[in-house]
């Protein structure tokens, strides 16, 4: 994973994957001390990013409507009870 990729642009999955990678690397203790601090900081940033993504999760439910000319549009769908 490219450490230079800004955390904000990462997908949840990539961020989580990188976070896991950093955690594992740190846990093996093979990292150089200076690197480990950088990794920790990035890990925390990734963790915050993931949490934000999870908090943002909200339902929005729409329905496709196909017009007579074949064009499609959406309208809110009331979930069936």
């Amino acid at each position, binding site marked *: 994973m490219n450490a230079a990729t800004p955390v904000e642009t990462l997908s949840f*999955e990539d961020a989580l994957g990188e976070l896991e990678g950093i*955690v594992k690397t*740190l846990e093996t203790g093979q990292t150089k001390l200076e690197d480990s601090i950088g990794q920790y900081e990035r890990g925390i940033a990734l*963790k915050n990013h993931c949490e934000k993504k999870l908090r943002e999760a909200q339902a929005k*439910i729409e329905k496709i409507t196909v017009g007579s000319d074949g064009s499609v549009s959406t309208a809110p769908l009331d979930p069936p009870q």
Partner: protein
Amino acid sequence: MTDLFEFKNNNETNNAAPPKSNVPEFSVGDLALSLKRTLEENFGHVRVRGELSRVSIAGSGHMYTSLKDDQALIDAVCWKGVLNRLSVRPEEGLEVIVTGKISSYPKSSKYQLVIESMELAGEGALLKMLEERKKKLAAEGLFDQGRKKRLPFVPNVIGVVTSPTGAVIRDILHRLQDRFPRHVIVWPVLVQGTGAAEQVARAIEGFDSLPDNGPITKPDLIIVARGGGSLEDLMPFNEEIVARAIATCKTPIISAVGHETDTTLADYAADYRAPTPTAAAEVAVPHRRDLMAQILDDKKRLLNGLNRLLNESRHKLEAQGARLGDPSRLLENKVQNTDFLGQKLEQVFKNFIQTKDAQLQRTAARITHPRHQIDQANQRLQNWSDQLLKTRTRLTEKKLDQLNSYARLLDSLSYEKILKRGYVVVRDTNDKPISDPNAISDAQDLQLEFADNKRVHVQSQ
């Protein structure tokens, strides 16, 4: 009996035919039309079971085929408008029950079955058809594992192709809400009956062809779902058009058709087959709570990892520092070494001196003072002179004794001694000793000498 009788009657009538005038004369066209009418009147609505044979769709869109069984064969036609509405896609070898009417085409007077609807002849036939279709599509590689796309870990937008009403969409939405609420776009379709397959296929293609940055957010995951039903109900999801739409769709697709035991061709073509719509929602999104927990855990591990690394580094540093040693200690060691060597040097030197001294002593002992030598010489001289003196005495004494013995011997041997023992010396007048008695004459004078020189003269007679 009646049949027999009538048969006889007919025979008689036929036999009585020869006079031709009684039989009306038709034109070919009249007869053909009459036949057509008769056929359509008597066979205006029939259900025929048979196997489809020689299926072909002409450029006009009409389908020409035949229905056959092991005894006979009837040509059949299905007009374009009807063909599109059929719930069964006609295929070669398909066992069907066809509803329609018998008609004839006057230009050739060939009769044919005009198909109005078609259904599969029983479940066995249906399954057989599905099996063959499945083989065909599998041979094309539509179900290859290599085609399966990976589902997104957390999709941003989920497109659902299903009926907008009913339990299926409700189950999916509820489960999504429980696990990980997402933006859902429903593409409403008929899920069974005529036209359902086309709608489903079009919805899949519709979702897949949405522009990336259009007014409608393009789903990054599609769920094709339908509740349970009979095999016939699920048929749209067995249609080639649906299977192909799913297989060629570039967006990952989860299929959830029917119950767990139902597997449709749509399921085979999909990237993931969920047993139920609820399960599809579970596969579509991870559990947000689990992710939260995982992230919390990751955070903890991150902190622990860093702490441990720091601790380990500190310990390593301390260990290395300890191994580096105290400089004063190093010095002490050196001093001790020096002391030790110094002592050793001293000892060795002392030993050396002692050895040399002993050597000197030994050598010196062998050197004597001249005086001592003189003393010794004197001593020797003294000794020798003493010795000599002793020798001299011994020598003189010896000689004296000898002399004495000789003297005594001489003394004892002297004639005087003999005289003393009574002997006399006879001598002539001239004093000459006479030892020979014969030499003595009677007339001669003799002298006798006795001891102590006493002499007596003896005269002749």
